[in-house]
């Protein structure tokens, strides 16, 4: 008695390994691009959240005369004005160590910072949704503290948003290029497969197999191959992002000035889309290629 499972219409191909390697590499690159877009998007959101709803007032050292008394007087005057301004939740002058910490990445740690005439900084927290007339506030600040400068961060927010959007669109562009390259590789492999299995295809066609039946044999073959290869590439990329997250968790900053490169668990889940996408591209490309080839047979 025979088993109830019929044999595969197409034999397993020993020569399919190069295609699977190509798809695995493509999937790895696609997962990196997708992960990079998620990191860029998260960083931009973080930056925006950190800067919006806040103001910074700098009190610059005077060009003439003693800096310290002037800085202290003007800072107190500015603080007094800001604390009375409607919509301001908190106005706090940064301490000297906090200011030194801010410039440390550019000037380095050491005694030289203490000798420099650094401006005083006031960090202002606004009520959510508060509408403040910033030009009028700026004028009032100049009257109270002539060497003060008001910064609402809008210039930085716009630039960061533009940068983050550019990074995200770059990642999408890379994803699109990888998808096209994968589709081309699968189309090429499908044509080679059709050529290699021409006798089988011709026989099935002669026996009355519908084009869809023959196409299914090929599309399943490439779908399974691409899913497996895509999973390998996706898991490798996932491992890389988890390693980056592990470095950050251990307190080691992989690349200075860049946002954390590790992905959150919810973001890692997005990488599952990579093998699925690779499988769908392979499935659709194989189906289209086979049906086009069968249309040319009588």
């Amino acid at each position, binding site marked *: *008695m*025979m088993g*109830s*499972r*019929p*044999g*595969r*219409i197409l*034999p397993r191909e020993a020569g399919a390994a190069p295609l699977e390697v190509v798809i695995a590499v493509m999937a790895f690159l696609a997962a990196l691009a997708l992960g990079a877009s998620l990191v860029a998007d998260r960083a931009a959101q973080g930056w925006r959240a950190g800067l919006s709803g806040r103001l910074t007032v700098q009190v610059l050292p005077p060009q003439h005369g003693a800096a310290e008394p002037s800085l202290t007087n003007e800072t107190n005057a500015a603080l007094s004005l800001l604390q009375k301004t409607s919509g301001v939740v908190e106005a706090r002058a940064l301490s000297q160590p906090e200011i030194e910490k801010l410039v440390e990445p550019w000037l380095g740690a050491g005694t030289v910072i203490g000798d420099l005439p650094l401006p005083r900084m006031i960090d202002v927290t606004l009520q959510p949704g508060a509408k403040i007339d910033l030009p009028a506030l700026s004028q009032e600040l100049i009257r109270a503290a002539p060497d003060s400068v008001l910064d609402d961060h809008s210039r930085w927010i716009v630039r960061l948003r533009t940068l983050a959007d550019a990074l995200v669109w770059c990642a999408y562009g890379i994803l699109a290029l990888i998808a096209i390259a994968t589709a081309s590789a699968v189309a090429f492999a499908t044509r080679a497969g059709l050529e290699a299995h021409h*006798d*089988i295809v011709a*026989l*099935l*066609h*002669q*026996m*009355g*197999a*519908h084009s869809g*039946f023959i196409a299914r044999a090929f599309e399943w073959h490439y779908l399974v191959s691409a899913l497996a290869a895509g999973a390998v590439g996706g898991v490798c990329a996932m491992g890389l992002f988890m390693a980056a997250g592990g470095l950050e968790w251990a307190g080691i900053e992989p690349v200075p000035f860049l946002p954390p490169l590790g992905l959150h668990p919810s973001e890692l889940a997005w990488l599952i889309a990579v093998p699925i996408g690779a499988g769908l591209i392979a499935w659709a490309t194989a189906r289209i290629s086979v049906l086009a080839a069968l249309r040319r047979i*009588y």
Partner: protein
Amino acid sequence: MLRFENVGMRYGAGPEVLRDVTFSLEGGSFTFLTGASGAGKTTLLRLMILANPPTRGLITLFGHDLATTTRSVFPSLRRRIGVVFQDFRLLDHLSAFDNVALPLRLAGRRPGDYTHDVEELLGWVGLGEKLNSRPPTLSGGEQQRVAIARAVVARPDLLVADEPTGNVDAEIGERLIRLFGELNRLGTTVLIATHDRSLIERGRAREMRLVDGRLVELRVPRS
């Protein structure tokens, strides 16, 4: 069942290999196709099984004028034809059982429905012990019997066989001809291309003979 009218065929820009071929096969008939090598037998068979379109002339199959029939209908017409190829055309990666079951799979039947039929048929052609054998492990004669079993398993309306007894001994050849005769008795139209004169004489069937691409003789047996 099948009608050829002034059919001509050439491959590319080459000479005509079939010229003005006109004949018809009635439903339930049994016919031998004879002719020397290169006479055009294989080309005529290829036109009959819808492997190639004719260069000129009209072919009517199962009531369909092939010149005007849409391509989407062809698979269903092909499934009504059983073909025994001279080179067998078995799928080497499939077992004898799966090769024979292929037409039934294409017809949409489930494995549970056809297992018994396929096993019985393979037993009938003497391969009951070789259900799981793959074609490369079978002798030429055994492969030919698998090919014949595959051609008849779906009880086709038209059976076309190209030298079906060329690789088997006399006893198996006799059994295969009996199988074709039985199928014919059940209503299948049979056409066999052969060089074997003894087969033709024994078969008491109609004979069509091709010479240089022309159908020169149509011999009807005396009843």
